[in-house]
Every structure is written in C-alpha cells, then in structure tokens.
C-alpha cells in the first residue's frame, strides 16, 4: 500500500477540485473528507479530528456509516452519504492515511473541570459503578487496535458522543460504551470531555 501515493492523491484533489474526474464516486468521497475534516485531518466543528486516529476504528466507523448502524443526527446528515459508495479498499486506504497524520490537541475544554475529568478517566468512580477509561483507551488516551484515540479530540465532539450514547444512539457502539456513558452525569461528561481535549 502506498501512503505517499494516497497522500498525493488527497492533496491533489483537495487543491484542484475542478480537476477531479466527475462521476468517480470514490475520488469524490476522498475529496469530501477534507471539506469537513480539514486537509490535515485536524477536524472542524462538527467533524472530528481524524489525524492520528486508530485505523481500525476509522475503518469500522466508515462501515458503520455505510450500513447506517451509526445513526446520530450528524452521521445521518453527512456521513451516511459520504460513506455510501466507498469500496472496501477505499475504506482501508483512507483509514491508513489519516492514522499517519500527527494529531494536535484541541485544547478547547474547560480548564476548571480538567482535574475532575482526569480523575474519572484514570481512576474511575467505583462507588458509582463508573469504570476507569484508562483500562481500554490507554494512559494517554491514545487508543489501541480498534479502540479509538480520545486524546486531543474537540470538547464539543467528545461531549456530544458521550451524551448521545445516553440518548439512545447506540447502534454503532457495542458494549460497553452505551452503558458506561449512560451512567455519567452532565457534569461528569463535561469534565471528561474537557480533560481529554487537552491530552496530547
């Protein structure tokens, strides 16, 4: 697989949209990524940062969008269409490409809540039956294999994802995340999202 070739393709398409061969669904979809997720994959609202994300996670999510398993409002609005015509190879290549970009931390959470977020992430709250996120997502929230990186994602994205599991948008996440997120209070969600937005 050629990261370089793909990167060149993505860049070329991003900067010369008019030159993209019309009607070629896969290439149009690649160009679409950069419109919302940024040319360096750092994300904009409401599209999350893809740079440095676990490739297995990105690939799984693209397949979840295309099968409509991930069904929150923004997914329906943007990603169902974007992922509709991706081939298996395109999914694989896109996931591999974004995983090679260096992520920057969003740093956009509430600093006053970060300490509480750290405590929930690293230690959990055993009395409230809330598990420690670190066990699966890793000491620096870097993720592993198909378990996503959380470190440095935007506060608003992290907050929305944690809220949505509690609201019934479950389909794309197997256990345990819907159950865990459903037990978090609004304040705990904001604390976690704040802490994680600062993690490099």
């Amino acid at each position: 697989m050629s990261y370089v070739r793909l990167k060149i393709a993505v860049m070329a398409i991003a900067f010369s949209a008019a030159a993209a061969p019309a009607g070629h669904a896969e290439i149009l979809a690649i160009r679409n990524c950069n419109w919302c997720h940024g040319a360096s994959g750092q994300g904009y609202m409401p599209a999350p940062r893809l740079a440095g994300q676990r490739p297995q996670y990105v690939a799984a999510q693209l397949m979840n969008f295309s099968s409509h398993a991930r069904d929150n409002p923004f997914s329906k609005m943007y990603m169902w269409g974007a992922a509709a015509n991706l081939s298996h190879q395109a999914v694989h290549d896109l996931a591999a490409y974004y995983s090679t970009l260096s992520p920057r931390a969003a740093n956009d959470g509430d600093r006053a809540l970060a300490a509480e977020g750290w405590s929930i992430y690293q230690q959990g709250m055993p009395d409230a039956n809330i598990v420690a996120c670190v066990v699966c997502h890793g000491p620096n929230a870097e993720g592993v294999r198909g378990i996503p990186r959380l470190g440095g994602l935007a506060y608003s994205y992290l907050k929305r994802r944690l809220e949505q599991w509690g609201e019934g948008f479950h389909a794309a996440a197997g256990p345990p995340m819907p159950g865990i997120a459903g037990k978090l209070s609004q304040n705990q969600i904001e604390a976690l999202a704040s802490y994680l937005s600062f993690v490099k």
Partner: protein
Amino acid sequence: MRGFDAIRTGGKTTASSLRRIDSKPRHDRSKRRISGAVGFALPIAFLAVAFAGVCRASDANTVAVGGIQAKIAYCKDCHGPSAQGYDGYFPIPRLAGQQTEYLENQLRAFIEHRRTNNIMFNVAHALSPGMVSALAENFKGLNPRPIGGAPTQFVAQGRKIFQDGVPDANVAACAACHGPEATGSGPIPRLAGQLYPYLIKELVNWGKERGQNPTKPDTSAIMSPVAHSLNKSEIEAVAAYVSYLK
C-alpha cells in the same frame, strides 16, 4: 499480536450477540423467581408490615438485589458482557467460571497490596464482603465461549507443557494443580478460556505483580518458581493452549 484485529472485530459482534442471548435467560430467571414467590407474597406482605422495624434492621447486613445487579453490570463493563474477558489497552481477564475462592482471594489481595493494580485496588475497596461473595458466585456460574485469538501454531507444544511440564527446567505439569481441564480448584484458578495476552502478562510479571506484601505471604508463592523457570516461548505456547480450552 496486531494480527488479532480481524478476530477482535468479530469478537465484538460476538460480545454484543452474547449480551442479547444472555439477557433473555436473565429475564426468565427473574420471572420464575417472581412467579414462585407469588404464593408466599400475601403472607409475606403481612409479615413485612408487622415486623417492618425488625426487617429494616436486618437489611443492613444483606446485599440489595439492585445493588448487586448494578455492581455485576459494572464488572462486565470491563470484563465483558458475559465476563469472557476483554482485550483493551490492558488485557482484562475472563472471570466466567472462575473459582470463587480464587476470585475472593484476589479481590482481598488487591486491597492488601499483595497484588499490585491501582485500578483493581480502587474497585475492590468499594466492595462489601457480602458483595464479594455474591459476585464470585455469579461469575462462577457463567460459561461463555473463550474469546480466542491466540496464534495456533504452538498450541500442540503448549498442550505438552500443560500435561507433562518441562522436566529439564524442573517445571511440573500445570495439570497437576490446575486440573486436566484447566478448571482450577479452590484457591487455584481456572485457566481454561483465559485471555492469551493476560496469561502472558501474568506469567512474565509474576514476581513483580503477585505476593508483593512481605507481611502477608500468600498462595502466589507456589507459582513463583514455575513462572520464573518458563521461557518466553514456553509461556506463549502454554498460554495459547489454555486460552482455547472451553
């Protein structure tokens, strides 16, 4: 180890389907309990009213059903919907079918710093003794399929080590203590179906993780020379073998 990804994706589907399969019998069981109790409900209601004060006093010593169910769900958030284990950033062991005596001893070991693990220290601290035995009893009764995923090429070598030991390294047969089916007994843990990466982590780090409180020597000392005498490839082989046992 990175090659497990495809298997893991499959494992997730299995995990969610297991939860679905799981939840039905759980409902049925509670229904049965309710219908069985109907005949007694009325007299019990009278008794409850009559002895309300007495009952309230005894409640303090029992584990509320909601309390234990919520705690089981909490354990399963990490250890898997059927307690089959989960390979997160750190491998999280299978608890299903585990010996109750072993499980209870490990939860005490975390609290007494015999076994070092910050996460499990916090978890175990929040458990009452009644809760610990109720959890151990619950996990003992579960029997999900092993999650698998270990490399298969050394399974035969692992079986040989498990059944015959490594005489040259003075390692006795694992089966001698853990049983021919690796189901364990009393304080000796079940190994059958345990996570491959977890087994390796424990065997490699035995002397750094277990028996860490010199004032409280424990049964982990029995395994110390064994873990020390096995080399890396022998550990991987025997871990692969037991990880597939049902």
